[in-house]
């Protein structure tokens, strides 16, 4: 097996997705079949190859470090599910 139930559970936690037992069962089987399929990459010798993370022949793209107009805070924050005083409001993070 390329992936087991515990690894899927661990990975889902890294991805911050809660899974039900049924989903866990389901996804483990499906992901295992997908990983078994992609295993065909191991038949190729890639030792001397450079990775292609990007197809364009470009490196860093710079611009002048100058102040520009940005969106009004009210526009940026208007979609937030919970907000207060122009800030995103979330559950308490720091233990008291």
């Amino acid at each position, binding site marked *: 097996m390329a992936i087991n139930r515990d690894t899927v559970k661990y990975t889902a936690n890294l991805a911050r997705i809660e899974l039900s037992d049924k989903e866990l069962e389901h996804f483990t089987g499906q992901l295992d079949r*997908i990983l078994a399929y992609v295993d065909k*990459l191991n038949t190729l010798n890639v030792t001397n190859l450079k990775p292609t993370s990007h197809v364009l022949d470009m490196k860093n793209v710079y611009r002048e470090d100058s102040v520009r107009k940005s969106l009004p805070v009210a526009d940026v924050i208007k979609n937030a599910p919970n907000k207060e005083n122009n800030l995103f409001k979330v559950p308490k993070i720091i233990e008291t």
Partner: protein
Amino acid sequence: MTMNMKLNTLTAHELIDLLSKGDISPIDICNDIINRIEKQEKSLNALAHFDKEKALERCKNLKEGVNKGKLWGIPIFIKDNISVKDELTTCSSKILKGFKPPYNATAIEKLMDIGAVLMGKTNMDEFAFGSSTETSCYGPTRNPWDLERIPGGSSGGSAAAVSADEAIFALGSDTGGSIRQPASLCGVVGLKPTYGRVSRYGLIAFASSLDQIGPITKDVEDAAILLKAISGHDEMDSTSADIPVSDYSSNIKKGIKGLKIGIPKEYFIEGVDKEVKDSIKLAIGELEKLGAVCEDTCLPHTEYAVSVYYLVATAEASSNLARFDGVQYGLRAENITSMMDMYKKTRKEGFGDEAKRRIILGTFALSSGYYDAYYSKALKVRTLIKMDFDKAFEKFDAIVTPTSPTASFKIGEKISDPLTMYLSDIFTISANLAGIPGMSIPCGFTKANLPIGLQILGKPFDEDTILRIAYNYEQSTEWHKKKPKL
């Protein structure tokens, strides 16, 4: 022009002519589209968001004047993952419920600058994860040629709307075939530009090294017009290329005599439907009649493309979709006890099955202990796939293949088996991995009257040549004139 001519059935270039003669007004076009939508949309479900009053209002508010833009008064539909300021843009996902972007995508700005009228948003696979438009939170879109079948995906809403004359043309996005495959399955034209040709600013990211916005149209001339309208360098997208944009619509009209076209044997393998193979072979014969020189070639690493893609694309997606966490926009789960609880429950409730599967797969491919075996290896094999094309394009001006191994399949047929679904992208994925332009044009029908698409792949930034081949083929055939009976 008769009074009975339904304007929604025409192409953009035909409407541009009529508008310039003063025979019709933008409102006339808008009204015919609204009528079509009111009659047809219930059975198609091609649209994610559409408000007819707003569409009419935009039409009425068009600025008149001597400097009317190239697309003045022409209505356009937009895939639901392309940001339109203050309009619902949800990637057909529950997690972006109610989201209205505070800015326009660059492609949208460019269209509005030349007078195009935004009509609404089209349905899609959730976050463009799919090949059938079945994973949308708004339910599946149906193929206008057979309502029991899928329109392809992920830009299935755009392709179905254009095919069914609910739209004149539309924008889609293509990460692994999401413009070309639905265009093929719905019998319309779809073009994925070279990576970097069109700004991705405002396109909600799926896989940033693969995504491109592109046109879905009724004919090749419209694809040329729309591509020109949205192309060009944009300082808001550092991966957009600073390379001049051609005058595609005049260049398509040159002949194709002497052009060298490669036919890769890896695209005619077992599993490709016989009716598809036969249609493509006839199309190649037609291209030869038009003076092109077609020869066999090989792209030896084609069989690895699906594997590379589903590691690279999911890895990038897992990173891009980390932003949907219930903080800044969209859904936030209720009854949460902590920050971590909020993340996990929001993403559990907000993402559909395929999104969860891909995020987990991508996270796995990037995770410590598996990175070298999966992600890093996939990037190296991507190099081999790119080198295959570099080599082929030393000899050929373009490459021709089927767009999809089969015509449209039944709703529900592949949705429970992700791997089988992934394999329906087998012929379109390589172009994204190599960054080259590709398009699909109608080239025939199966006995069951389902459209078949011809894929034309070109050199980087040489959209001119693939459009020219497509146009010459189209002008010598009648496929693009056939309409679904709805």
